[in-house]
């Protein structure tokens, strides 16, 4: 199972585009990438979930951990997501109140 992780800088933010399925097998790679970006001093990160086909609580946990790590540096981690089946996971766990979720990368980096 492949997990695509592409990084680009946009309008002063680091955009991490995730593709594929995020579960207990692939989530460690997402965690490693977030840790790597923070260690490089990237404290404003937008995680683009538009290419994600599946996300479970392991993936949620990695995003929560990433947000905590960034806030400790006065940074932030925001999300781009419009897919109902992915949004639903955030909604039923209440995490829509924790993350800023945008409809596009442009909106997220504005």
């Amino acid at each position: 199972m492949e997990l695509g992780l592409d990084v680009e800088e946009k309008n002063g933010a680091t955009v991490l585009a995730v593709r594929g399925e995020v579960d207990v097998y692939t989530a460690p790679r997402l965690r490693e990438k977030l840790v790597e970006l923070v260690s490089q001093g990237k404290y404003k990160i937008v995680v683009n979930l538009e290419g994600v086909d599946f996300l479970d609580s392991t993936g949620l946990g990695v995003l929560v951990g990433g947000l905590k790590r960034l806030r400790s540096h006065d940074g932030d981690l925001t999300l781009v997501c419009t897919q109902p089946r992915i949004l639903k996971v955030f909604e039923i766990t209440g995490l829509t109140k924790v993350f800023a979720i945008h409809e596009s990368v442009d909106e997220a980096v504005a």
Partner: protein
Amino acid sequence: MDAVIELQIPARAEYVGLARLVVSSLASGRRALADERIDDLKLAVSEACTNAIEAHHSVPVDEHVLVRCSEAEDRLEVSIHDRGTGFDPEALPEHPPVTDPERLNFERGLGIPLIRTLVDEVAFESSSEGTAVRMVMYCDAADDFDDVDLELDLTGLDDIDGSLGSSGPAE
């Protein structure tokens, strides 16, 4: 008569995707569950298999996790069996409310609350010799299939927030 399909997977993370694929393919083949409910079942299976695999890591056993699917006319039942040391699903620690900054200290423990929300029925049977998570999805009547309400009811969200009960242990 119920049709039964059993899948044994090694207790390793890379096989959770296979369990999801098998169950979602089976559910799709029935053509009696709306796509959104198939996604719900797929997510619940992923959560249960993740817990099962993590339970196997805590004990020195080299046994497989069993995924058992049972089809009846009105339902699809999926049970996940592990050989871990068991847990008490009613005694899982609670998370702080999502509005509490302390919530960010909890990266785990959402699996069981998610399962409870996503499937029509769930039962946890756990002992020191293993755990079985039995999940049931009732099929939508074919005549009503086009009328299934696919909108998510979030009216109870605040209550759900306060009941995200587990953290720490694999299950």
